[in-house]
């Protein structure tokens, strides 16, 4: 059908791009220590972008044989569509990261149930009233993009994720911890780390301890580093730069962070969840330096934003900012979004960093950090899961406290350490591979 849409659309418009997205995913899940469900989804959808009279129209459909409907809707919306700033992809060479894995394809329902059940078995001794949840998912995606400029590329991708969590309700005190593995390669090898991480957080969380309001040294676990990147990402997105709302807009070449901080956006690494040969508009994938040794190097941009900024597109044109959002499928328009965000590791292991903290806080999960205005550089949220550290030891869990950090200041002047160990993690918003980060001068407000 993709050729049919392309051929018909070519007759109606000056230039066109058609994408076909096909995916099948399977998930098995345990809930409250018991096997609960199995879910299979099969998707097949088409998206068209079409240029005529200097405008670019966009539409999509998951209806079979909707060729005429797609073209009709593109014609109707054309008049109001954005000005076409860029040209669709031409035939080009692109990298070929390894993103399929026979070991994922071989996972049948029985082995997924077994792995998920093993997680429950390994964790159910944590407490007599503990409720363990676990799940294993596999996902197979085929993407094909064709343009009237001669681009015709396709790739296949296998994804796998394993997650486990523990819930304890002890009167009015709730404890909820969880961890996950994700990749475009078999991630079952990390199973023992997954279990030990959940055990560690749960055991630490059994005791609540008070914390004083004020400035603290905070060790951000990789999941909380994800929140840090959420704030930074807004300022390094070419869209913010073009709109002149990014505080980094005129700072390329300047020292914006501590010299130990290096941040890349990289969709070419084998096996990472957001790796692929080309983005959703056919631009080849690449490793884009954003901050190197603390110096701002550049921004990410899809074809439209790159044209507006007069830079080369960076392979960051995606149909959503996150694959877990319901709009992250074929019906989302292409915009500039991160692929795998990577922070380069430091020299010391995270356990050794923690052991060296005299008075501090370990933050694993923040709530509400995406509700503020990220362009101010302020990361603020309720500490959903966090711990007090005294003399190199975790003494217990912090509750009912808020964290507030001005990242533009703290990442420049208050970086204490960055761990040598890094973790691949994922949220609704982005995929990352990052170390732990120890930052000073973080404000905690407690009840």
């Amino acid at each position: 059908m993709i050729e049919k849409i392309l051929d018909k659309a070519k007759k109606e418009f000056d230039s066109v791009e058609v994408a076909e997205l096909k995916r099948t995913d399977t998930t098995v899940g345990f809930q409250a220590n018991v096997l609960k469900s199995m879910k299979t989804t099969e998707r097949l959808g088409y998206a068209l972008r079409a240029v005529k009279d200097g405008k670019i129209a966009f539409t999509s459909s998951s209806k079979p044989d909707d060729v005429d409907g797609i073209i009709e809707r593109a014609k109707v919306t054309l008049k109001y569509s954005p000005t076409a700033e860029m040209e669709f992809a031409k035939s080009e060479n692109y990298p070929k990261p390894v993103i399929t894995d026979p070991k994922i394809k071989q996972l049948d329902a029985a082995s997924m149930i077994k792995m998920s059940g093993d997680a429950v078995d390994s964790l159910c001794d944590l407490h007599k009233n503990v409720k363990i949840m676990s799940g294993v998912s596999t996902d197979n995606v085929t993407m094909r993009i064709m343009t009237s400029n001669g681009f015709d590329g396709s790739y296949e991708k296998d994804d796998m994720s394993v997650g486990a969590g523990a819930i304890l309700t002890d009167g009015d005190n709730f404890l909820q911890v969880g961890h996950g593995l994700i990749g475009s390669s078999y991630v079952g090898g990390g199973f023992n780390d997954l279990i030990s991480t959940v055990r560690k957080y749960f055991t630490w969380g059994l005791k609540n301890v008070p914390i004083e309001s004020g400035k603290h040294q905070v060790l951000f676990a990789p999941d909380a580093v994800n929140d840090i990147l959420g704030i930074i990402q807004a300022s390094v997105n070419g869209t913010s730069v073009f709109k002149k709302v990014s505080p980094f807009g005129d700072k390329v070449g300047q020292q914006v962070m501590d010299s130990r901080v290096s941040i890349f956006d990289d969709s070419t690494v084998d096996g990472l969840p957001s790796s692929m040969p080309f983005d959703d508009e056919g631009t080849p994938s690449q490793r884009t330096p954003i901050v190197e040794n603390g110096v701002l190097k550049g921004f990410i941009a899809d074809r439209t934003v790159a044209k507006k900024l007069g830079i080369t597109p960076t392979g960051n044109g995606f149909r959503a900012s996150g694959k877990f959002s319901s709009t992250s499928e074929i019906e989302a328009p292409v915009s500039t979004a991160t692929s795998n965000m990577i922070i380069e590791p430091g020299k010391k292991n995270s356990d050794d960093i923690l052991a060296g903290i005299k008075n501090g806080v370990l933050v694993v999960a923040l709530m509400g950090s995406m509700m503020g205005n990220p362009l101010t550089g302020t990361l603020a949220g309720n500490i959903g899961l966090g711990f007090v550290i005294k003399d190199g030891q975790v003494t217990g869990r912090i509750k009912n406290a808020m964290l507030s950090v001005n990242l533009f200041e703290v990442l420049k002047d208050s970086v204490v350490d960055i761990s040598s160990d890094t973790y691949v993690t994922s949220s609704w918003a982005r995929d990352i591979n990052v170390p732990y980060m120890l930052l000073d001068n973080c404000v905690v407000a407690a009840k």
Partner: protein
Amino acid sequence: MPTFDTYHSKKTPIIKRSVMKSQLLSLLKRDDCDYIEIRLEDTIHTQIKLSGKDIENVAENCAYGGNVRALYKGGWSFVSFDTLSDIEAKVDMAVAQAREIGNRISAKSQLAKVDPIVDTYKIEPITDVRDVPLTKKMDTLLNYNEIMMTASPDIKSTNVFYKDAWIKQIFANSEGTYIEQEKMDMGCNMYAIASKGGRTEYFGTSVGSSNDWSKILGFEKAVEEKAKIAAGLLTADKPKSGNYTVILNPKLAGTFIHEAFGHLSEGDNVYENPELAQVMSMGREFGRPLLNVYDTGLDLGVRGFLKYDDEGVPTEKTYLIREGKLVGRLHSRETAGKMGERPTGSARAINYKFPPIPRMRNTCIQVGNTDPEEMIADVKNGLLCVDVFGGQTNGEMFTFKSGMAWKIENGKKTEMLAGPLLQGNVFSTLKNIDMVGTDYEDPDAAGGCGKGGQMPLPTTHGSPSVRIHDVVVSGK
């Protein structure tokens, strides 16, 4: 095999009725599972996004597909698909998967009993989104955008997000329920972005409806005022972090109750957790006698309106808190069945790609009897928090972001402040509500609620102003 007869002209019936109904019901006659259902959907969405001087996106998309959900010995399977031509195979697959799970757990399938329903529910919109040409939608939004952009020299950009949808849905289950249902949805957020000297602030308003496109009209004055507030926030201070008495305006109070109590009322948190069920036992005191909270699908016109949920159960008005005490929760048929409670028509899915789970509809703090002006009178050092930028909860603790705030000193509104982040704990914060206002509102917006990867679900939060003591505020 059934073809879902589409095209969103009003003359076409939802489906070729004679074909579809009998075929679907016969597909569901199986003796190798305990329960099975099919849900088919055909949706046309319009999405428009304006950003400053640019039109960022205008799209009309078609989402078309369905799902089969089956239950066997306590094990569920859910199969969703875009291609309907081999629906028999999908039914077989769902049953096989449910048996794979059910045979391993061998539990009892427990669904609360409901009477089978055969119904066709057509909505009667006041202004149908399909009757409004794209030209009119665009002109309306471009006008608001222009008003905001010219409201102050400090307004550098805007964020106008509009969406509407017309949904046709068919639901059938193995108990004989067969429902054809239409849904309309419209929402719009209009925000002005002010920027000066490296500082950026934003403020705006929003609207939504499930039966009247014209609700979006008449916002010329409102968007101008909101844009001026955004510009004013550029020089506003942040409140000092600490504990305050706060007054939430209706828009913020609605999100507050959604996060603070709504999510914990959802039956799937409780039904497999006896310790939590004990904590959440009926009659437990959560607030003072002045606090009444309910969730309803019956409010015609708000985005949280719903005739039948995604298990074919009629919706209702469900009281959650009456005079401060817990009296109900939001159930799917399974969570109700397992807890021996009544299904409430709260099983919802954002679309055919997802299974239904217990969700909110219009979650409300019932109107009280305090004049909002009175709430300020005896506050020595507090905050009046206005409008909302979002909220989140982990069950026990919750956080929500206010759009802006006024400092209250010795009973007077004094300084305008940038919106703080507030946090609370369900077991203490609700008890600290000591005043509930007379100024009830049903505000709607273009966003919605997110849970279990399903976002955004159309929900509404109705509330009057409320006053709460001892709230942790994160400012500067």
